[in-house]
């Protein structure tokens, strides 16, 4: 299957996302998977950076806590703000290019989205906790 055939959602549909950051990365979860937004919470709760195995560059903004519906329970994940909600059209959401998906070691990355902006726009990594955690990460179900 080539990228031209690999459309995401039918034209006209849109999806609600909760957007947040970790360092320079812009990340998102489907809004339906985010149960609550809370203040930063305890420092021993896992960060999205640790869960994804991202380089330890560290966030520069204020931390918030998301309660997220996981495959077997609720996850508490620290993320970098601002945390916002957006409705993205289907045309802005793309499956992972196959040769990228074949070698990507990041867990949870389910799709990509582009938002218009300067310098070619912004890339958003759309995460899906249902795809499982990276091996070796601590259990965080509560």
């Amino acid at each position, binding site marked *: 299957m080539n*990228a031209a055939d690999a459309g995401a959602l039918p034209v006209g549909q849109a999806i609600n996302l909760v957007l947040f950051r970790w360092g320079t990365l812009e990340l998102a979860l489907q809004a339906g998977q985010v149960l609550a937004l809370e203040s930063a919470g305890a420092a021993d709760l896992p960060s999205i950076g640790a869960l*994804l195995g991202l380089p330890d560059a560290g966030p520069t903004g204020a931390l918030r806590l998301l309660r997220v519906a996981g495959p077997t329970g609720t996850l508490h994940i620290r993320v970098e703000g601002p945390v916002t909600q957006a409705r993205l059209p289907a045309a802005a959401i793309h499956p992972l*290019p*196959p*040769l990228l998906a074949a*070698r990507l070691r990041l867990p949870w990355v389910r799709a990509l989205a582009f938002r218009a902006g300067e310098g070619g726009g912004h*890339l958003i*990594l759309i995460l899906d906790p249902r795809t499982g955690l990276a091996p070796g990460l601590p259990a965080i179900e509560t």
Partner: protein
Amino acid sequence: MVTDPDSPTDLPAAALDALLEQRARDPGAIVEVDMPTVQWVVFSLGEGAFALPGRQVVEILPLVPIHYVPGGPPALAGVIEVRGIVWSVLRLAALLGGAPDPVGRQASILLGRAADMESGLLVDGVDDVCEVAEDAFLAPPTNLPGRLSGCVTGVFQHRAGTVLALDLERLFADWRDGRS
């Protein structure tokens, strides 16, 4: 009549008549000979010249912003969006086992497609798109270093230099299967 198998192939009589008539009309004219050619996209990587078959290069793009995606091997430069389609971008120098040079102003992205695989390929610069006669395409040298030895299908001369023709399907398959 006994024919010499090493002699040039005889032209049909009618074709010979036409050729002689043409030469008689214009002795200095260039006689066209059907010579099978293949289109190549010639580009540079470091000090070397390389090529991909034109039929496997969907598009040649100037350097556009490449969006970084963490969690991939060093050869993964990131992704780009081209008219609503997202392409991965791989550093071709790294796929060939070399250290990529810093990305310069002349850098280009080739959108490549081979078998059922496709990706953008970051190269230092595109030099030419040219037709090369099939009989000018020679077997690859036997002393190519490292990964090049398995990824070069042949060589040809271009602008007084030697160009290494790459096997894009092999490059993509090796990447996909974790061999590069």
